[in-house]
Each structure stands twice: as structure tokens, then as C-alpha cells.
């Protein structure tokens, strides 16, 4: 690999990692608030990816509206999943394993909806959604699609940080991640906080679905990429969204390099082996911190 090629792989890896970061953070928000791994997030991502696909292929909308449609679809589907699936378990104070099993079931159900509507083929976003394909700087040719997904991700993260640091409801989502009961003692309607968490998580999932669909291809199983979000949120350390985002970018970079060197067959094997090795060395994740009760 020469230097130019390495540089291009870094750009590809960062762009892929950025999309993983969006997926992982959307996934981790629900893990933090409700303490279970929400694989239905993959279904949210899948439906949004196809919503963006319809918007661009049937209605010829341009890139930004397509991303926005994906985002809104993600929020709506995530809240629907909460209403249809998780709410009842919460009302009955069900065990976490019920949430987990339900979330996997919802992922499969949402996938099947896509299979029924679109068949189990591969589709691609319209070729001219992004007009300019490459920017050439000397020998270097950089994919505009990748640059744009990188930019969209940065904007999405900017918004996310604003919501979580500067708005009352955003701070309440973080408070609920610390301690749901005490949050209710502040006069905060925790039911609303949970819905807000699903809205934010779904928006992130929707954007990531559209970006992932544009940069790869569409199939009803697209939602299974949520596993990457799961890996990143474990590696990043529970509770720290920054750690999760960093882990996701690292995962994207590693994956792109592995695919270009040892191929896409072996790459997942190496990634899972790395994940296990990492967790043995640092079980709290990249940024995992735990505050202990002080007497």
C-alpha cells in the first residue's frame, strides 16, 4: 500500500466510523436510559434507510431532504416501537431479559416488513443523489459521498451535544440514565423522558440508516449493522457517549483496513477477536468510569 492509498483508506475508514458512531450512540442512549440492548434500533435504521430511498427514487428529492426524511422516520418508528413493544413491559416492571428478547423480535418484524414491501433484493439509492462523485487532488481522489456523510455526522453530533448539554429535557435524559427513580423525585415525568430518549435515538438511527444506505447498498437486512453499534457501545464503555463514538470511529477505521488487507471474509473474525481481547484488558471500555457511592 502506498501513502496515497493509505490516506484514502483513512478517509474511507473515518467516514464508515462516523456512520458507526451515529448508530452506536443511537443504540447507547437507550442502553443508558433503560439498561437493555435495544436491537430494534436496527429495524428503525432499516425502515429509515428505505424511507430515504423512496424519497429519493420515487420523489426525486435531493440529499438534504432525504436525510431529514430519514431522521423524522427514525424518530417516529423508534417511538412506535416504544409504544407497541416496550411500554407494556415497563408498566408491568418486567425483567430486562424481556426487553432484550422483545427488541430482537422487533428487529426481525421490521426486517420482514421491508421484505414484504421491497422483496429480498439489493437496491441502491439513485446514482445522481450526489452529483459530484470524486474530488481529485493530484493523485488523490476522495469520495464525495464519504466526505458528505462525515459532514452530516459532525452536524448530527453537534446537535446531539447541544440537546444533551443545553436543554432541560436533554439533561433529564442523562439524569434518567444515572437514576430513573430520583429523576422522578425532581418533578420530571419519566415517561416523557423515555419518549424523548427514543426520539433522539431514532433521529440518530434514521440519519445513520440513510447514510449507510447511500454509502453501501440497501437490503432488508441492512438493520443488522446495529451489531456494529452494539460492539462500539460495549468497547466505548457504558454510560459514556463520547467513549462510544470514539470506539465506533476506531472500529470503522480498523474494519476498512482489514477489508482492504485480509478481505471481508476474515475481517469480522479479527474484529470479534479484538473485541474479546480488548474487553479482557479493559472491561470498563475506553472511557468507562464508575462513580462509587461515597460515605
Amino acid at each position, binding site marked *: 500500500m502506498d501513502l496515497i492509498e493509505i490516506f484514502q483508506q483513512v478517509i474511507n475508514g473515518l467516514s464508515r466510523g462516523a456512520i458507526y458512531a451515529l448508530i452506536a450512540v443511537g443504540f447507547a442512549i437507550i442502553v443508558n436510559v433503560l439498561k437493555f440492548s435495544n436491537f430494534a434500533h436496527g429495524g428503525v435504521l432499516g425502515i429509515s434507510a428505505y424511507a430515504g430511498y423512496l424519497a429519493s427514487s420515487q420523489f426525486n428529492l435531493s440529499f438534504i431532504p432525504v436525510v431529514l426524511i430519514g431522521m423524522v422516520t427514525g424518530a417516529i418508528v423508534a417511538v412506535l416501537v416504544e409504544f407497541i413493544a416496550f411500554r407494556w413491559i415497563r408498566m408491568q416492571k418486567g425483567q430486562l431479559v424481556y426487553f432484550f428478547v422483545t427488541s430482537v423480535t422487533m428487529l426481525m418484524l421490521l426486517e420482514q416488513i421491508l421484505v414484504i414491501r421491497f422483496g429480498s433484493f439489493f437496491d441502491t439509492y439513485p446514482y445522481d443523489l450526489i452529483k459530484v462523485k470524486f474530488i481529485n487532488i493530484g493523485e488523490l481522489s476522495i469520495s464525495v459521498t464519504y466526505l458528505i456523510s462525515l459532514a452530516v455526522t459532525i452536524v448530527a453530533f453537534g446537535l446531539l451535544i447541544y440537546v444533551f448539554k443545553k436543554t432541560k429535557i436533554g439533561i433529564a435524559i442523562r439524569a434518567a440514565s*444515572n437514576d430513573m427513580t430520583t429523576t*422522578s*423525585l425532581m418533578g*420530571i415525568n419519566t415517561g416523557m423522558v423515555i419518549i424523548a430518549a427514543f426520539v433522539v435515538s431514532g433521529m440518530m438511527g434514521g440519519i445513520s440508516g440513510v447514510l449507510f444506505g447511500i454509502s453501501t447498498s440497501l437490503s432488508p437486512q441492512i438493520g443488522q449493522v446495529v451489531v456494529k453499534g452494539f460492539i462500539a457501545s460495549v468497547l466505548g464503555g457504558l454510560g459514556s457517549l463520547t467513549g462510544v463514538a470514539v470506539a465506533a470511529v476506531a472500529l470503522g477505521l480498523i474494519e476498512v483496513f482489514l477489508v482492504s488487507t485480509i478481505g471481508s471474509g476474515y475481517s469480522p473474525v479479527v474484529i470479534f477477536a479484538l473485541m474479546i481481547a480488548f474487553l479482557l484488558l479493559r472491561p470498563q471500555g475506553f472511557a468507562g468510569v464508575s462513580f462509587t457511592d461515597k460515605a
Partner: protein
Amino acid sequence: MLEINHLHSGYNKIKVLEDINIQVPDGKIVVVIGRNGAGKSTLLNTISGLVKISSGSIMLDGEKLPPTPHRIVARGITQIPEGRRVFPSLTIEENLIMGGYLATASEIQKRTLEVFETFPILKERFHQQAGTLSGGEQQMLAMGRGMMANPRILLLDEPSLGLAPLIFTQVFELVQQLNEERNMTIVLVEQNASIALNMADYAYVLEDGKIVIEGTGKDLVVDPRVKAAYLGGVVEE
């Protein structure tokens, strides 16, 4: 006036409180003492709506309290829970904002300044995560967070637990100050009976989920049964 009439409550099938009758007149300090496991926290959590009422009632000004914790806070009843329960990954500023969740932005600003006046240490550490504070500082933050709601009735669950004597004296002074200066009604639940009874207008002794003795704070301090069981001179814990 907060009135608890023939209250029974508990968790699932486990009964904790039996036939509790407590009156909390406006502007008074009412203390409930009792040992670990007597049901003190369950009592406050039932008032706050975290524990379901099995039978009996809790009335505020003759009206039943709403069924959910956040609506009870909106009625002016705030609890400072046992063990402080600050939000460890939130900054002190964010913890205080959560305490004043139902208030307007300008009220939050005004009350934050009041909290800083009471606890200057919190101002110094404004942007620090609450989890990095010492136990005593966390109790100050928990008190400050409770003050942010500016409640009519403040419920305190064992604020002295695990604190050095100097700090808990401060905490009790503050409670009296809130009562005197703001006419805030206080319901204080404590194991540390002597200090609590001395500041009480009225007090109850809770044993095994039942009220066994009640009277004015002054009466209970000299009550031989209370003396024997709770004021033996040996510091518990």
C-alpha cells in the same frame, strides 16, 4: 396541612406500613424516628408516590395527592432521598437545574444564587461532575437540589447518614433555617434521634411499620421509652 390517614403500604405482597396516622401542619417540623427497617423510607416514598398506597389516604389541604411522583412534586412536596442520590455524571450546575425542573429559567437562576449563598463550595465546583464530590459535599448538593424546587413541604430521609458530626450539624441548622425563614414545612425521618427530636414541633416513633409513640419533640426527648430505646447515649451505626 398534610394528613396521612390509616395508611397501609408496601412492596408487592410485602406489607411495610400499617395503619399510619400522621398530621403535618403548615410551617411545622415533624420528625419520625425509628431504627433501620422500621419503614421510615417507605413512609416518605409513599408520600412521594414511589410506593403504592394499599389502603388509607394521604391528603394535602383536604385533597388526595396525585398518583405519580412528578405530579406530587408539582403540588409542592419534594423529597431529598436517603443516600443523597445526586446524579453522579451530571455537573453540579446540571444537578441544580434538575432540582428546579418545574421552575422557569429566571427562577432557576435566582434559586441557584441562593444555593450558592448557603453552600459556597458548590459555586467553586460548579462545572465539576457530582460523582467527584466527597460525601459531605454530595449531601450539600442534595440539599441544594431540593431547595431548587422551593417546595412547600420538604421531606428529608436521614440526611445525617454517614456524615461527619460537623457536617450534619450544618445540615440540621439549614433545615431549621428553611423552616424559620421560608416557612417551609419539614418532614424529617431520622435514626439520629436526639438532634432530630430537639428541633421537632411534633414527633412520631415508628417501629415495625407502626406508630408506637407520638408527642411534641420536648415530650419525646424526656419520654422514658424513647430514652431507653433511642437516646441511650450510644451512637448507632
